[in-house]
């Protein structure tokens, strides 16, 4: 548990052995190993076949992707029978630009965007990437289509119960189709 490798070693600093102790460093880490739940495993298996799946609530018709196995609004469970395949084109409904702070463990160095998508025909995905699109050009209303990782390189190692639709090993990202932007009325009530 104890991580003795300190991120910014103070070992070289001269220490007065008679000085009062005002604090102590204690570096630790916790490791977790979680089993992938069945509905997320099915989502991951579909990604390997270049398919995007979700569960459609039998009561309110909302589509959840990745599937959760239930609709939290209607409190009904969903199963394989509620599975639908979604289209791989859609509209950027919202986005955020992350400016990385170089805290311990941060691997990103440049600002990057994460976007939420509303897919044609229904369904939403969050935490998606638009590789190659400068962050200042990212905007709501952009029409995009999926870019799958090529055969042989595609993997779902990063898909977990907690990845919320982020699947960078399988989906390289989304690229603008070049079509005119969608009218806000098409997505303005679906900004997540």
């Amino acid at each position, binding site marked *: 548990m104890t991580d003795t490798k300190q991120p910014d070693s103070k070992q070289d600093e001269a220490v007065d052995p008679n000085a009062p102790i005002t604090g102590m460093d204690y570096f630790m880490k*916790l490791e977790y190993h*979680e*089993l992938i*739940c069945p509905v997320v495993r099915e989502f991951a298996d579909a990604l390997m076949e270049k398919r995007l799946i979700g569960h459609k609530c039998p009561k309110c018709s909302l589509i959840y992707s990745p599937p*959760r*196995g*239930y609709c939290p609004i209607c*409190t009904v469970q969903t199963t394989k029978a509620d599975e639908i395949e979604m289209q791989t084109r859609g509209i950027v409904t919202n986005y955020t630009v992350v400016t990385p702070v170089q805290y311990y463990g941060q691997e990103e160095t440049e600002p990057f965007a994460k976007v939420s998508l509303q897919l044609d025909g229904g369904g939403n995905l969050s935490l998606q990437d638009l590789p190659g699109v400068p962050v200042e050009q990212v905007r709501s209303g952009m029409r995009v289509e999926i870019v799958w990782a090529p055969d042989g390189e595609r993997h779902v190692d990063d898909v977990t119960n907690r990845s919320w639709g982020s699947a960078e090993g399988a989906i390289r990202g989304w690229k603008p189709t070049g079509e005119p932007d969608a009218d806000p009325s098409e997505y303005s009530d679906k900004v997540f």
Partner: protein
Amino acid sequence: MVNDIAIVGYAQSPSWRASELTEPQFLFPVISEAIERAGVERREIGFTCAGSCDYLSGQTFAFVMNLEAVGAWPPISESHVEMDGAWALYEAWVRLQHGDIDTALVFGSGKSSPGKPAEIYPLQMDPYTLTPLGADPVSLAALQARAMLDAGKITEREMAEIAARSRKSAIGNPYAQVSGDDDPEALLKEPYVTAPLRRHDLPPISDGACAIVLATADKAKALSKRPVWIRGIDHRIDIHQPGMRDLTESPSTRLAGKKAGVGDAKVDVAELSATFSHQEKLLCEELGLGDDVEINPSGGALAANPVMAVGLARFAEAARQIAEHGKHRVVAHATSGQALQQNLVAVLEGD
């Protein structure tokens, strides 16, 4: 003045060593079953309170995800305790005392399987003197058992007998994880895990959940033919630093038991959160429970230990004794912290 509150519905998941379901996924049917058994409409419930610990599953705001199993849209009135669900029940009991609402849902859930409990728990101890030592529940319980053995308050044979009886009681309990017909003599031949504790003295590592629906008196009578009344409930806490208390005693249990009224009349059954075998004897002594009281007919925490749900599960099992097995007066006990640091005691009664 205290208003009468009753348990009108309860449900549990099985206790698994490692569930492949997420916490909201295995909570979902448990909460639905408790609500169905209570016979209330989900949207009628006036208050919801949950007990869980994000450190267990290692997910920030995991307790918010758990609300997906409740149905929190349109918004509901809810709260959370970073404690066993039994303390969520206490908060809901207090909330119902206000008298403006008549039903409450409480639940506790935990997934211990993804992490390593021996690494996680030392983080709740004193960060200067105990966390760096890796003071985990098994080590501290072993110190407590050693102190009790040295004081002549228990024997290793008695500990093995408690474990064997718990495992036998758990046979047929669909929620139990450890059960079987073991000879205490054979158990005593097993090696120590952390002396003086052997495997049978330890609880299993478990994933699981429990949910309970509470109602005020008039509502409970309308909903249930056999409401389970909470006649007394109290929780007390001993000092955090285990080195500064006598581990062979549990003053907080004694006081909580007195305040809850355990000794005021005959007790038929007690469901105790004795997570380690020796703690059962200590709890019985502090609560004044004699040989005529049936202890942990479910198998108790030695048979199933879904942390953050195990104490609330004692309430569910205690309520079952009254509602399904015709018992009249049953004690439920939950504990928090290490080596019985904090204790909650309730007296449940049938009509």
